[in-house]
């Protein structure tokens, strides 16, 4: 690992200024992605700005929304009785990320800022149509994801919280890579009065995406059988040592059916 300066500001404005005055400075949340990246020398920051003293963790639930502070750990979301009641699929998703020790440190803000194409939270944000709040604005899920490891965040922009509308029903189903624990295919299905949204993670070269054909069929009829005849083209899906694009295309159908049944 290359060496770097370390700062732990206690005010959001100070953190933003530390990140924007030096374009080689990087934010640190739980470190469960960033520290492995540093170990592999894939990133060489001059300065690491620890976000843990900015008061950005905590969960607020209203009848129609769940708002989670950026520094809230996966473990705290999984164990939150309020989240379990309001959006059980979200608590369940958090409980399946990595392993126990990763969940003790990893945060929702870090996961969404990183936008790993195999990460779990991006599918929840996109399927639930949530919003990302930063130090300077709010960004709708449909505008936030811009391809793998790429988001609408500007350099130095810090996520402060994430808000999810409460759906009528929802479920997350993940076919996980048994070694890495990330999603080989993960499907988040959410049913609202206005229609159904389906987001797929782990599968596509461009990262998380909405499945328009499934959404149309399920908005008309929220039943497993509604998507029985729909196949997913494998063209833009990932092929790697874990699974071919054709297998991932197949898994998308299987995991979506399981999600509908579980919702």
């Amino acid at each position: 690992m290359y060496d770097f300066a370390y700062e732990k500001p206690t005010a959001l404005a100070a953190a933003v200024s530390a990140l924007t005055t030096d374009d080689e400075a990087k934010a640190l949340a739980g470190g469960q992605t960033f520290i492995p990246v540093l170990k592999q020398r894939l990133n060489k920051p001059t300065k690491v700005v620890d976000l843990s003293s900015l008061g950005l963790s905590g969960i607020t639930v209203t009848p129609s929304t769940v708002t989670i502070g950026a520094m809230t750990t996966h473990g705290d979301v999984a164990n939150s009785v309020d989240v379990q009641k309001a959006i059980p699929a979200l608590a369940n998703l958090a409980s399946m990320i990595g392993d126990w020790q990763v969940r003790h440190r990893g945060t929702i803000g870090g996961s969404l800022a990183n936008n790993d194409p195999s990460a779990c939270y991006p599918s929840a944000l996109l399927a639930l149509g949530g919003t990302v709040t930063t130090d300077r604005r709010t960004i709708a899920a449909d505008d936030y994801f811009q391809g793998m490891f790429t988001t609408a965040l500007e350099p130095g922009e810090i996520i402060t919280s994430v808000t999810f509308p409460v759906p009528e029903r929802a479920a997350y189903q993940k076919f996980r890579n048994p070694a890495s624990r990330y999603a080989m295919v993960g499907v988040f299905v959410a049913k609202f009065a206005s229609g159904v949204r389906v987001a797929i993670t782990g599968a596509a070269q461009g990262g998380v995406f909405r499945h328009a054909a499934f959404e149309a069929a399920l908005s008309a009829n929220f039943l497993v059988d509604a998507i029985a005849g729909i196949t997913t083209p494998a063209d833009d899906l990932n092929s790697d040592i874990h699974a071919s694009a054709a297998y991932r295309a197949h898994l998308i159908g299987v995991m979506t059916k399981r999600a509908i049944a579980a919702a």
Partner: protein
Amino acid sequence: MPSVTLTVNGKTHTVEVEGRTLLVELLREKLGLTGTHVGCDTSQCGACVVHLNGTSVKSCTTLALQADGASVVTIEGLAAADGTLHPMQEAFRENHALQCGFCTPGMVMSAIDLVMSHPQGLSESDIRHGLEGNLCRCTGYHNIVKAVAAAWPVMHGRELAPAE
């Protein structure tokens, strides 16, 4: 050089570190506590698990500076001064839950957190899922699961209520 002040196994230390120094490097190289192991560089094996302010974390995936002001417990901090083993260590010994012993410090630290955070009881499946972050190349896990189940009543001072 920055310095970090933390409590390790009840003793307070102030140590000079670099920004990049990992908590596990501080423990092993600066404090000589080599019971905490490093088995991978991908944050997957759990050989490095310690307790940071009471919860289990991978010390290879935590910067030393992130632990400033924190209280850390390592495998060396478990046994009593007279050498009496912690109930989890004793259960590992009784149940032959280790062979080469490389994974054992991390396994024991994770297992203690798992038992303490489940006062309502632990099923075999809870134990297996709870230890997903700890890899063992020797035992096949079965005796580790038995050891954790055996330690639960000792650590909580009561028998498990029978499942309904």
